[in-house]
Protein backbone atom coordinates (compact mmCIF):
# COMPACT_ATOMS: atom_id res chain seq x y z
CA UNK A 1 0.00 0.00 0.00
CA UNK A 2 1.40 3.44 -0.99
CA UNK A 3 2.03 5.98 1.78
CA UNK A 4 1.34 9.69 1.31
CA UNK A 5 4.01 12.27 2.05
CA UNK A 6 3.24 15.54 3.82
CA UNK A 7 3.12 17.58 0.62
CA UNK A 8 0.70 15.15 -1.06
CA UNK A 9 -1.43 15.15 2.07
CA UNK A 10 -1.74 18.97 1.94
CA UNK A 11 -2.57 18.86 -1.76
CA UNK A 12 -5.24 16.23 -1.17
CA UNK A 13 -6.80 18.23 1.68
CA UNK A 14 -7.13 21.24 -0.60
CA UNK A 15 -8.60 19.11 -3.38
CA UNK A 16 -11.00 17.42 -0.96
CA UNK A 17 -12.25 20.80 0.24
CA UNK A 18 -12.83 21.88 -3.35
CA UNK A 19 -14.49 18.57 -4.19
CA UNK A 20 -16.82 18.99 -1.21
CA UNK A 21 -17.80 22.38 -2.65
CA UNK A 22 -17.99 21.27 -6.30
CA UNK A 23 -15.18 23.69 -7.11
CA UNK A 24 -12.75 21.36 -8.88
CA UNK A 25 -11.75 22.24 -12.44
CA UNK A 26 -10.94 19.50 -14.98
CA UNK A 27 -7.24 19.21 -14.08
CA UNK A 28 -7.95 19.22 -10.35
CA UNK A 29 -10.70 16.63 -10.76
CA UNK A 30 -8.27 14.33 -12.57
CA UNK A 31 -5.70 14.85 -9.83
CA UNK A 32 -8.32 14.25 -7.14
CA UNK A 33 -9.50 11.02 -8.79
CA UNK A 34 -5.91 9.87 -8.99
CA UNK A 35 -5.50 10.39 -5.24
CA UNK A 36 -8.72 8.50 -4.52
CA UNK A 37 -7.68 5.60 -6.76
CA UNK A 38 -4.10 5.38 -5.51
CA UNK A 39 -4.57 5.88 -1.79
CA UNK A 40 -7.23 3.93 0.13
CA UNK A 41 -7.09 6.47 2.98
CA UNK A 42 -8.08 9.21 0.50
CA UNK A 43 -10.96 7.12 -0.83
CA UNK A 44 -12.07 6.41 2.72
CA UNK A 45 -11.92 10.04 3.76
CA UNK A 46 -13.88 11.16 0.70
CA UNK A 47 -16.46 8.45 1.35
CA UNK A 48 -16.63 9.48 4.99
CA UNK A 49 -17.43 13.11 4.08
CA UNK A 50 -20.24 12.29 1.64
CA UNK A 51 -23.14 12.10 4.16
CA UNK A 52 -22.10 15.42 5.70
CA UNK A 53 -21.90 16.97 2.26
CA UNK A 54 -25.35 15.68 1.44
CA UNK A 55 -26.93 17.10 4.62
CA UNK A 56 -25.21 20.51 4.63
CA UNK A 57 -26.19 21.06 1.00
CA UNK A 58 -29.84 20.95 2.10
CA UNK A 59 -29.45 23.44 4.96
CA UNK A 60 -30.05 27.09 4.26
CA UNK A 61 -31.33 29.97 6.39
CA UNK A 62 -34.95 30.94 5.96
CA UNK A 63 -35.39 34.17 4.05
CA UNK A 64 -37.19 36.80 6.10
CA UNK A 65 -40.24 38.59 4.65
CA UNK A 66 -39.51 41.02 1.81
CA UNK A 67 -40.60 43.94 4.02
CA UNK A 68 -37.61 43.28 6.29
CA UNK A 69 -35.25 44.29 3.47
CA UNK A 70 -37.50 47.15 2.37
CA UNK A 71 -37.41 48.62 5.87
CA UNK A 72 -33.83 47.68 6.77
CA UNK A 73 -32.10 50.92 5.75
CA UNK A 74 -34.95 53.07 7.07
CA UNK A 75 -34.74 51.38 10.46
CA UNK A 76 -30.95 51.71 10.52
CA UNK A 77 -31.27 55.39 9.53
CA UNK A 78 -33.81 55.96 12.32
CA UNK A 79 -31.36 54.44 14.81
CA UNK A 80 -28.60 56.72 13.55
CA UNK A 81 -30.83 59.76 13.89
CA UNK A 82 -32.08 58.67 17.30
CA UNK A 83 -28.50 58.26 18.47
CA UNK A 84 -27.66 61.86 17.53
CA UNK A 85 -30.93 63.05 19.10
CA UNK A 86 -30.12 61.27 22.38
CA UNK A 87 -26.65 62.82 22.49
CA UNK A 88 -28.11 66.32 21.95
CA UNK A 89 -30.92 65.69 24.46
CA UNK A 90 -28.51 64.40 27.13
CA UNK A 91 -26.11 67.30 26.59
CA UNK A 92 -28.96 69.82 26.89
CA UNK A 93 -30.35 68.10 30.01
CA UNK A 94 -26.92 68.15 31.69
CA UNK A 95 -26.46 71.86 30.91
CA UNK A 96 -29.93 72.76 32.25
CA UNK A 97 -29.48 70.62 35.38
CA UNK A 98 -26.09 72.22 36.06
CA UNK A 99 -27.59 75.69 35.64
CA UNK A 100 -30.51 74.90 37.99
CA UNK A 101 -28.26 73.37 40.67
CA UNK A 102 -25.79 76.27 40.47
CA UNK A 103 -28.53 78.89 40.81
CA UNK A 104 -30.28 76.91 43.55
CA UNK A 105 -27.08 76.86 45.62
CA UNK A 106 -25.76 80.36 44.88
CA UNK A 107 -29.05 82.23 44.94
CA UNK A 108 -31.91 80.39 46.64
CA UNK A 109 -29.99 78.76 49.51
CA UNK A 110 -28.14 82.00 50.23
CA UNK A 111 -31.17 84.27 49.98
CA UNK A 112 -31.64 85.71 53.48
CA UNK A 113 -35.15 86.91 52.57
CA UNK A 114 -36.37 83.31 52.49
CA UNK A 115 -36.80 81.69 55.93
CA UNK A 116 -34.04 79.18 56.75
CA UNK A 117 -36.51 76.37 57.48
CA UNK A 118 -38.03 76.74 54.01
CA UNK A 119 -34.62 76.88 52.31
CA UNK A 120 -33.37 73.72 54.01
CA UNK A 121 -36.74 72.00 53.60
CA UNK A 122 -36.68 72.59 49.86
CA UNK A 123 -33.00 71.51 49.72
CA UNK A 124 -33.84 68.19 51.43
CA UNK A 125 -36.88 67.62 49.18
CA UNK A 126 -34.72 68.27 46.10
CA UNK A 127 -31.93 65.98 47.30
CA UNK A 128 -34.38 63.20 48.29
CA UNK A 129 -36.21 63.53 44.96
CA UNK A 130 -32.93 63.27 43.03
CA UNK A 131 -31.84 60.21 45.06
CA UNK A 132 -35.25 58.53 44.50
CA UNK A 133 -35.09 59.26 40.76
CA UNK A 134 -31.58 57.75 40.43
CA UNK A 135 -32.59 54.71 42.50
CA UNK A 136 -35.76 53.98 40.46
CA UNK A 137 -33.90 54.58 37.19
CA UNK A 138 -31.13 52.18 38.21
CA UNK A 139 -33.65 49.51 39.21
CA UNK A 140 -35.55 49.86 35.92
CA UNK A 141 -32.34 49.61 33.90
CA UNK A 142 -31.19 46.58 35.88
CA UNK A 143 -34.56 44.84 35.37
CA UNK A 144 -34.54 45.68 31.67
CA UNK A 145 -31.07 44.21 31.27
CA UNK A 146 -31.61 41.06 33.30
CA UNK A 147 -35.29 40.18 32.94
CA UNK A 148 -35.35 36.62 31.51
CA UNK A 149 -38.96 37.04 30.35
CA UNK A 150 -38.60 40.35 28.53
CA UNK A 151 -39.00 38.75 25.10
CA UNK A 152 -42.31 37.16 26.07
CA UNK A 153 -45.45 39.07 25.11
CA UNK A 154 -47.57 39.58 28.21
Amino acid at each position, binding site marked *: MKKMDEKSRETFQELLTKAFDNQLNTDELAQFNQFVEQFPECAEEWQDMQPLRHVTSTMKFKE*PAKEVWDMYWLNTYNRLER*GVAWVLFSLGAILIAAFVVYNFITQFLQDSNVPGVLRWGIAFVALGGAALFVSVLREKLFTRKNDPYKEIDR
Partner: protein
Amino acid sequence: MHATAEIVTNAIRMTNTLINERDLILRCQQGDKDAFGTLVKKYMQRAYYTALGFVGSHENALDLSQEAFVRAYRAIQRLDADRSFYTWYYTILRNLCLNFKRDKAKKARSFSEIGETSLRSIRDKDADTAHSVELSELQSAVWTALEKLTANEKEIIILRDIQELAYHEIAQTLDIPIGTVMSRLYNARRSLRAQLDGKI
Protein backbone atom coordinates in the same frame (compact mmCIF):
# COMPACT_ATOMS: atom_id res chain seq x y z
CA MET B 1 -4.53 27.70 -16.53
CA HIS B 2 -8.19 27.70 -15.50
CA ALA B 3 -7.26 28.32 -11.87
CA THR B 4 -5.04 31.26 -12.83
CA ALA B 5 -7.84 32.81 -14.91
CA GLU B 6 -10.19 32.41 -11.95
CA ILE B 7 -7.74 34.11 -9.59
CA VAL B 8 -7.24 37.00 -12.04
CA THR B 9 -11.03 37.40 -12.52
CA ASN B 10 -11.59 37.45 -8.76
CA ALA B 11 -8.76 39.94 -8.29
CA ILE B 12 -10.26 42.27 -10.94
CA ARG B 13 -13.72 41.94 -9.38
CA MET B 14 -12.38 42.71 -5.91
CA THR B 15 -10.38 45.69 -7.18
CA ASN B 16 -13.47 47.17 -8.89
CA THR B 17 -15.51 46.65 -5.72
CA LEU B 18 -12.83 48.35 -3.62
CA ILE B 19 -12.60 51.32 -6.02
CA ASN B 20 -16.38 51.88 -5.85
CA GLU B 21 -16.36 51.36 -2.10
CA ARG B 22 -13.48 53.77 -1.62
CA ASP B 23 -15.59 56.52 -3.11
CA LEU B 24 -18.55 55.60 -0.90
CA ILE B 25 -16.41 55.46 2.25
CA LEU B 26 -14.89 58.88 1.50
CA ARG B 27 -18.40 60.30 1.03
CA CYS B 28 -19.52 58.70 4.32
CA GLN B 29 -16.55 60.31 6.05
CA GLN B 30 -17.83 63.67 4.80
CA GLY B 31 -21.19 62.94 6.45
CA ASP B 32 -23.08 61.70 3.38
CA LYS B 33 -25.76 59.39 4.81
CA ASP B 34 -27.00 58.38 1.34
CA ALA B 35 -23.56 56.92 0.59
CA PHE B 36 -23.78 54.98 3.84
CA GLY B 37 -27.26 53.84 2.82
CA THR B 38 -25.77 52.41 -0.38
CA LEU B 39 -23.26 50.42 1.67
CA VAL B 40 -25.95 49.21 4.07
CA LYS B 41 -28.22 48.07 1.22
CA LYS B 42 -25.31 46.32 -0.44
CA TYR B 43 -24.34 44.29 2.64
CA MET B 44 -27.54 44.05 4.72
CA GLN B 45 -28.44 40.52 3.67
CA ARG B 46 -24.98 39.13 4.25
CA ALA B 47 -24.83 40.96 7.60
CA TYR B 48 -28.22 39.64 8.69
CA TYR B 49 -27.41 36.02 7.83
CA THR B 50 -24.01 36.29 9.52
CA ALA B 51 -25.66 37.54 12.71
CA LEU B 52 -28.30 34.83 12.40
CA GLY B 53 -25.53 32.24 12.26
CA PHE B 54 -24.06 33.62 15.47
CA VAL B 55 -27.17 34.28 17.56
CA GLY B 56 -29.87 32.09 16.06
CA SER B 57 -32.98 34.25 16.19
CA HIS B 58 -34.46 36.55 13.56
CA GLU B 59 -35.16 39.46 15.91
CA ASN B 60 -31.71 39.44 17.49
CA ALA B 61 -29.97 39.02 14.13
CA LEU B 62 -31.86 42.00 12.73
CA ASP B 63 -31.19 44.09 15.83
CA LEU B 64 -27.47 43.26 16.04
CA SER B 65 -26.75 43.67 12.33
CA GLN B 66 -28.42 47.11 12.36
CA GLU B 67 -26.67 48.10 15.58
CA ALA B 68 -23.35 47.12 13.99
CA PHE B 69 -24.10 49.40 11.02
CA VAL B 70 -24.86 52.27 13.41
CA ARG B 71 -21.56 51.70 15.25
CA ALA B 72 -19.74 51.44 11.93
CA TYR B 73 -21.15 54.81 10.82
CA ARG B 74 -20.14 56.45 14.10
CA ALA B 75 -16.59 55.12 13.69
CA ILE B 76 -16.31 55.54 9.92
CA GLN B 77 -13.71 58.32 10.28
CA ARG B 78 -11.30 55.69 11.58
CA LEU B 79 -11.72 53.43 8.54
CA ASP B 80 -8.96 53.53 5.94
CA ALA B 81 -10.84 54.16 2.68
CA ASP B 82 -8.59 51.68 0.86
CA ARG B 83 -9.77 48.83 3.08
CA SER B 84 -12.83 46.70 2.39
CA PHE B 85 -15.84 48.10 4.22
CA TYR B 86 -17.38 44.69 4.87
CA THR B 87 -14.20 43.19 6.35
CA TRP B 88 -14.08 46.07 8.81
CA TYR B 89 -17.84 45.96 9.47
CA TYR B 90 -17.67 42.19 9.95
CA THR B 91 -15.23 42.63 12.87
CA ILE B 92 -17.69 45.00 14.56
CA LEU B 93 -20.63 42.65 13.92
CA ARG B 94 -18.73 39.56 15.05
CA ASN B 95 -17.67 41.20 18.34
CA LEU B 96 -21.19 42.46 18.93
CA CYS B 97 -22.66 38.99 18.34
CA LEU B 98 -20.09 37.20 20.49
CA ASN B 99 -20.62 39.70 23.33
CA PHE B 100 -24.36 39.25 22.99
CA LYS B 101 -24.01 35.47 23.14
CA ARG B 102 -21.71 35.68 26.15
CA ASP B 103 -24.11 38.01 28.00
CA LYS B 104 -27.09 35.84 27.18
CA ALA B 105 -25.29 32.52 27.57
CA LYS B 106 -27.70 31.17 30.14
CA LYS B 107 -30.86 32.58 28.66
CA ALA B 108 -30.26 32.49 24.91
CA ARG B 109 -31.87 29.78 22.92
CA SER B 110 -29.53 27.06 21.88
CA PHE B 111 -28.04 27.13 18.41
CA SER B 112 -29.75 23.86 17.54
CA GLU B 113 -33.11 25.60 17.86
CA ILE B 114 -32.30 27.49 14.67
CA GLY B 115 -33.49 24.35 12.96
CA GLU B 116 -37.00 25.03 14.20
CA THR B 117 -37.17 28.73 13.53
CA SER B 118 -34.68 30.08 11.02
CA LEU B 119 -33.63 27.17 8.88
CA ARG B 120 -35.05 26.48 5.48
CA SER B 121 -34.61 22.94 4.29
CA ILE B 122 -34.04 22.34 0.60
CA ARG B 123 -35.62 19.00 -0.13
CA ASP B 124 -36.13 16.96 -3.21
CA LYS B 125 -39.72 17.56 -4.32
CA ASP B 126 -40.16 13.89 -5.15
CA ALA B 127 -38.72 12.68 -1.86
CA ASP B 128 -41.11 10.66 0.26
CA THR B 129 -42.13 11.61 3.79
CA ALA B 130 -39.88 9.06 5.44
CA HIS B 131 -36.88 10.49 3.61
CA SER B 132 -37.91 14.04 4.63
CA VAL B 133 -38.21 13.05 8.28
CA GLU B 134 -34.83 11.36 8.16
CA LEU B 135 -33.28 14.44 6.54
CA SER B 136 -34.79 16.71 9.21
CA GLU B 137 -33.30 14.54 11.92
CA LEU B 138 -29.91 14.66 10.24
CA GLN B 139 -30.11 18.46 9.88
CA SER B 140 -30.98 18.73 13.54
CA ALA B 141 -27.98 16.55 14.42
CA VAL B 142 -25.71 18.77 12.30
CA TRP B 143 -26.96 21.94 14.03
CA THR B 144 -26.38 20.40 17.43
CA ALA B 145 -22.89 19.30 16.39
CA LEU B 146 -22.12 22.78 15.02
CA GLU B 147 -22.79 24.20 18.45
CA LYS B 148 -20.00 22.09 19.86
CA LEU B 149 -17.38 23.44 17.46
CA THR B 150 -15.13 26.40 18.23
CA ALA B 151 -16.36 29.86 17.17
CA ASN B 152 -13.88 29.92 14.26
CA GLU B 153 -14.89 26.47 13.00
CA LYS B 154 -18.60 27.21 13.24
CA GLU B 155 -18.11 30.58 11.59
CA ILE B 156 -16.33 29.25 8.51
CA ILE B 157 -18.81 26.40 7.98
CA ILE B 158 -21.73 28.81 8.18
CA LEU B 159 -20.09 31.26 5.79
CA ARG B 160 -19.39 28.56 3.22
CA ASP B 161 -22.01 25.83 3.59
CA ILE B 162 -25.04 27.77 4.79
CA GLN B 163 -24.45 31.26 3.38
CA GLU B 164 -22.72 29.82 0.31
CA LEU B 165 -20.06 32.54 0.06
CA ALA B 166 -17.29 31.89 -2.47
CA TYR B 167 -13.77 31.24 -1.16
CA HIS B 168 -12.59 34.70 -2.20
CA GLU B 169 -15.56 36.31 -0.43
CA ILE B 170 -14.76 34.44 2.79
CA ALA B 171 -11.09 35.39 2.43
CA GLN B 172 -12.07 39.04 2.06
CA THR B 173 -14.57 38.91 4.92
CA LEU B 174 -12.18 37.28 7.38
CA ASP B 175 -9.12 39.06 5.98
CA ILE B 176 -7.20 35.81 5.47
CA PRO B 177 -5.61 34.18 2.37
CA ILE B 178 -7.69 31.76 0.27
CA GLY B 179 -5.32 28.92 1.23
CA THR B 180 -6.13 29.55 4.88
CA VAL B 181 -9.86 29.56 4.07
CA MET B 182 -9.53 26.10 2.55
CA SER B 183 -7.42 24.65 5.34
CA ARG B 184 -9.79 26.08 7.97
CA LEU B 185 -12.74 24.63 6.09
CA TYR B 186 -11.05 21.25 5.87
CA ASN B 187 -10.31 21.17 9.61
CA ALA B 188 -13.75 22.50 10.57
CA ARG B 189 -15.49 19.87 8.48
CA ARG B 190 -13.32 17.15 9.97
CA SER B 191 -14.28 18.34 13.46
CA LEU B 192 -17.94 18.47 12.49
CA ARG B 193 -17.74 14.99 11.00
CA ALA B 194 -16.09 13.73 14.20
CA GLN B 195 -18.89 15.28 16.28
CA LEU B 196 -21.41 13.44 14.14
CA ASP B 197 -19.69 10.10 14.36
CA GLY B 198 -22.32 7.38 14.51
CA LYS B 199 -25.17 9.79 13.73
CA ILE B 200 -24.73 10.11 9.97
